[in-house]
């Protein structure tokens, strides 16, 4: 096999970034849950607290949280779910070794490991089922070997070897997917190699003239931003997983960032991408802003979920850091009024960096996470509460809250804020201060830690999302909540929590993000996980029936394949399958994502 070299090979100008996450992920990250080892919720007497010092909530007590958990989810703190304290290596499946491949890897001096913990760490993403499996049992099939190629050339070598020796490759970036995308197909008999891109984390060049940068695909979001910001630039791509997710992963899952209104989603940011397939490298022959050369192959690579090859290098647009950043918030009498306001903001093409609308349940949840004397002083808080409930006649059980982030010059930010406040007033919304806005975004980064905490107390929780035209936002949100209400009642589930927020605005519609949780402590369930998945599947059916999509940015992976024929039409699916077959005739990228098994055998 002939290999083209990528545009930029090994060279001196590349910027080495300090990788936050070490090669041995287990040294920094939890083996059985989300995030840093030192950051977790715990019970300090009868008050919830958050450990560590990495987040605004770290080191604080949260006096309102347990009351909320008891009221809403009937959480009983006296009974915890037994879980494994540490990874038991004897439970880890024995690796299937391809001797030829091993020898060649050693010969090529590619970093690798057969250690059980290395392999388990790369066997999963962060769906609630995967975390549940880690805490209670073990995956039936995990990667047999972990490889750390150092650059594009080494990836080419590895893929070529794998193709020749019939070894399966599953690319690994930050491991933060929530679609089961990293789970190994249970019945795969070949050796499975996890290709960890984390050592490919250099910024190859920054082109200030054209506002571009090229990076290796393994770079983690926070490292990329930190390095660029040192030089006065930003990519502006901020998915909720930015602390741990990788550039290659963003491309492979078609990711979306919080500030996409200004900077764009990954498909808008990406200018060039290099993909190593089992037959060779696919890439454009130039780095240009736009090209007309038939159907855009970038569109094939973005969202390919590891099915077609390994993404090794990516060129992204960058922007100078904004002069000013400011949060804001608005309170509306109810959710539908808030939706109308967001719709109007989008209609006028006003572009705050972010505008989100939380429903009442999420607003209350946010309050439950309050730190005493923290974010806003109690005096101010009482005044605000009084104003909202008494003076404006707002019902605390109905109101919704929009949080805003503005970026730009000071004047731009102030003008925009003023204009948006005026629109809000038309829909009976009133400004509720900067601190409330900040608080809204805080939840984003701690929610996964809370999910893990809840699992200790018989609560299973997950998020799912969709995109939908503006006119169907309200009905979709309502329908999904009613659907969950009905399905829980049918299963005798008394305590559950379903909440949603509008997280992204587009010209033609919005992205809706749901949290779903239920308490199974009082239920005699043999498999609560299966019940959770049933509920989520019912919710997805209802989403589709209400005019929403299969996913906005999480992707399909393995857990949403059921809806792919409906999503892209059966012919669309076989087209995808034909492309896969052409690029990967031996099916060495056998992650099993996107295409339902019944289709992939066609």
């Amino acid at each position, binding site marked *: 096999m002939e290999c083209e070299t990528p545009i930029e090979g090994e060279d001196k100008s590349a910027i080495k970034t300090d990788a936050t996450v070490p090669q041995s992920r287990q040294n920094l990250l939890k083996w059985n849950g989300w995030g840093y080892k030192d950051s977790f919720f715990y019970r300090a007497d009868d008050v919830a607290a958050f450990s560590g010092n990495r987040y605004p909530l770290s080191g604080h007590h949260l006096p309102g949280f347990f009351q909320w958990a008891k009221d809403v989810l009937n959480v009983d703190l006296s009974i915890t779910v037994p879980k494994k304290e540490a990874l038991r290596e004897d439970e880890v499946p024995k690796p299937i070794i391809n001797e030829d491949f091993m020898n060649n890897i050693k010969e090529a001096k590619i970093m690798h490991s057969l250690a059980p913990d290395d392999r388990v760490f790369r066997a999963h993403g962060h769906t609630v089922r995967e975390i549940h499996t880690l805490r209670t049992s073990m995956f039936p099939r995990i990667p047999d070997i972990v490889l750390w190629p150092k650059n594009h050339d080494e990836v080419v070598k590895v893929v070529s070897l794998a193709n020749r020796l019939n070894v399966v490759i599953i690319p690994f970036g930050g491991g933060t997917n929530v679609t089961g995308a990293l789970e190994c197909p249970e019945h795969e008999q070949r050796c499975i190699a996890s290709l960890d891109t984390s050592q490919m984390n250099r910024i190859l060049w920054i082109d200030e003239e054209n506002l571009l940068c090229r990076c290796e695909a393994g770079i983690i979001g926070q490292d990329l931003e930190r390095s660029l910001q040192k030089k006065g630039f930003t990519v502006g791509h901020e998915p909720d997983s930015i602390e741990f997710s990788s550039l290659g992963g963003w491309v492979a899952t078609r990711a979306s960032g919080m500030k996409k209104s200004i900077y764009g989603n990954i498909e808008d940011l990406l200018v060039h991408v290099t993909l190593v397939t089992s037959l060779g490298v696919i890439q454009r022959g130039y780095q240009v802003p736009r090209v007309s050369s038939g159907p855009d192959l970038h569109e094939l690579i973005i969202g390919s979920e590891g099915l077609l090859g390994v993404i090794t290098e990516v060129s992204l647009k960058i922007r100078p850091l904004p002069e000013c950043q400011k949060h804001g918030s608005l309170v509306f009498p109810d959710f539908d*009024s808030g939706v109308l306001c967001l719709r109007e903001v989008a209609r006028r093409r006003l572009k705050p960096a972010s505008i989100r609308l939380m429903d009442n349940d999420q607003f209350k949840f946010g309050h439950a996470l309050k730190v005493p004397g923290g974010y806003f002083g109690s005096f101010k808080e009482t005044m605000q509460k009084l104003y909202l409930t008494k003076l404006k006649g707002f019902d605390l059980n109905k109101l919704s809250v929009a949080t805003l982030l503005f970026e730009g010059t000071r004047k731009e930010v102030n003008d925009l804020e003023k204009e948006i406040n005026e629109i809000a007033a038309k829909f009976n919304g009133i400004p509720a201060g900067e601190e409330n806005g900040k608080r809204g975004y805080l939840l984003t980064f701690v929610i996964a830690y809370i999910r893990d905490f809840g699992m200790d107390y018989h609560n299973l929780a997950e998020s799912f999302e969709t995109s939908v035209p503006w006119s*169907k936002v309200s009905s979709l949100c309502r329908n999904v909540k*009613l659907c969950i209400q009905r399905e829980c009642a049918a299963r005798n589930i008394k305590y559950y929590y379903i909440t949603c927020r509008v997280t992204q605005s587009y010209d033609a519609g919005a992205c809706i993000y749901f949290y779903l949780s239920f308490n199974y402590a009082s239920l005699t369930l043999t498999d609560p996980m299966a019940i959770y998945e049933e509920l989520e599947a019912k919710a997805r059916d209802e989403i589709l029936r209400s005019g929403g999509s299969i996913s906005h940015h999480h992707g399909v992976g393995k857990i949403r394949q059921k809806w792919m024929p409906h999503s892209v039409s059966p012919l669309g699916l076989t087209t995808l399958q034909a492309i896969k077959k052409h690029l990967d005739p031996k099916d060495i990228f056998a992650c099993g994502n996107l295409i339902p098994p019944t289709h992939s055998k066609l």
Partner: protein
Amino acid sequence: MTNMRLAMGDQHHPNSTSFQDGGANHQYRSVLKTRKTTSDLMWSLQPWQPSHTFRMGSPSLLPSKLVPHVLSSPRVNNVIDQLSEENRCSKKILEKQAAAMLEEMAHNQKMCSIRLFGICLAKLGKLLYRDIYVNRDGIEQVRSLIPHGPILLLPSHRSYADFLLMSVISFHYHLPMPVIAAGMDFMNMKMMGELMRQAGAFFIRRSFGSDRLYKTIFTEYVQQLIMQGDHPLEFFLEGTRSRSGKALPPKLGLLSTVLELYLKGIVNDIFVVPVHISYDRTLEESLYAYELLGIPKPPESTRGLMKALSKLQEPHGDIHVTFCPHFSVREFFSSWIDCSPHIMSPHFISSVAEQTVMAELATKVLQSQLKHGVLPIFPLVSAVVLYKEAMDLKCLTERVSYLTQLAAWQGYHITTCSEAELERVLALHSNILEVKDGRLSLVKEREPLEPASLSRSRGHVLLQSTVQKAIPSIRLQHYANQCLHIFLDPCLLILIANCNPVPKDVLREEYRWLRMLLSLEFPTMLEFLDDEFKRCVDFVFQRDLLFRDENGIYHASASPLLNFAMAAFRPFLTTFALVCHMLAMRSMFQWMAESFSGHISESSPCASMGHVYIEAEKLGEEDCLETLPLTALATSV
């Protein structure tokens, strides 16, 4: 039988009666009891809070605010744009038209008017009826559904009295007041129209086929009523009062408009509550008989109403209102419909729903009404008399008991068949049936019809003698028809086997064919015909109505039901035969041509009824005369 006894005099529950069907126990409570002992005024002025209702999102709008909301909707704007372009007329004019249509349509429900109505209806109810019974479990069912989604109340329609009955019951039980779809006829009544509007009626034209603006306004208004969520929507699937006493084939327009909300994914679910209302004695029994002979009904007017009310001094017995078990549209559709074609377009673009599925759903409602409703005893008495099963009291009691038992075995609810009860209903209907020395006979129509009325009859000449002979039988048929559905399936099987002993698969095929032929006469879900057949074959077998010989051939037993089957269902078949016969006659071709040439309207079946009478007299088929089923004609045409 014991479990079917009405516990009317029961000491423990003096106001309640109960029926058991399988596991379900329907408790019927009296609505009028307390009206008779306490002040109507105080009742109507009671502090009134409806049960917690379903909330779609934003707070609901007052009726007056709903009108501009509908007029400014994308759907209405869209059609106004289209029409102004197509017809080259100004939008202003169309907007004015739209506003006028909506003004004509919209309800203006006000609690004070409902209270006023409450007093009047309570007084009137006590004047006309002995009591009104409602199944309490049905009321509680509706109450428990209300917070979960929009509700359709779909009552059977046998009388004008149906109209505000639901509102009185809702008021009595503190359920949210329904909004009611009414025909335009009522709107034109002086004062009454406005009063009904204030009681929650909204008015729709009987047909608006090509008027796109009207259709759009109608769709948006009805869907908004549902979306507002604070009132159940009540309408009559049958579209009009059934003159014959049988269920009419359902009209699907309003139903489809409502269900589009589900198909397009706007609402999560819609709950359908069929309601059955049965009357011991129908207010309009005589009017119906004349209408069926082809003499048109007088137009609705307030004066006419007052006049009619002043005449109504005779007692009319009891009313039984049954809120049948609800079903969810979501569950019903899940096995029938793929919603995906409906969700591709925006909400305001109407999508054509599968009419066959709508028809199945409507049929399910009608069947449920018939299955769960309470049938008074008089229809059985009428059938026995009409089909000349018995003409003396002793024999009558025996025959009615037998039929009651057959009905009970099949799970139908019929008021008790005691001697006292028989005596009561015979007294109630003394205008139809006379008892002299233990013998029963039909009361002759006493007042001859004015010649003016005779000449008003449409399409044919009615003879005074025809009227006098036919009216009493048609009146009686109105009641007998109310029980025919109960015996339809067993009787058809008996008739088939009696005509020609057949193996089971032929029996099934012939049964299917007959049910399909009669599908406009009796609500039929084609999908479930085979299940019906199985159920029914088992039933007639268990009851020895049919037997199988050693060759697997089915024969009809010499059962008491055989005669009944012949008398009750042969007329339907005779009608079809007759129509075919007439089609072959030259003189009829002209009439057929007229009918086909464009106006098979409401009047034409009536007109044809007269024709058939005349023709039948010529043919000497007088036996059939009294029992010719009206709608069978329409079907066969």
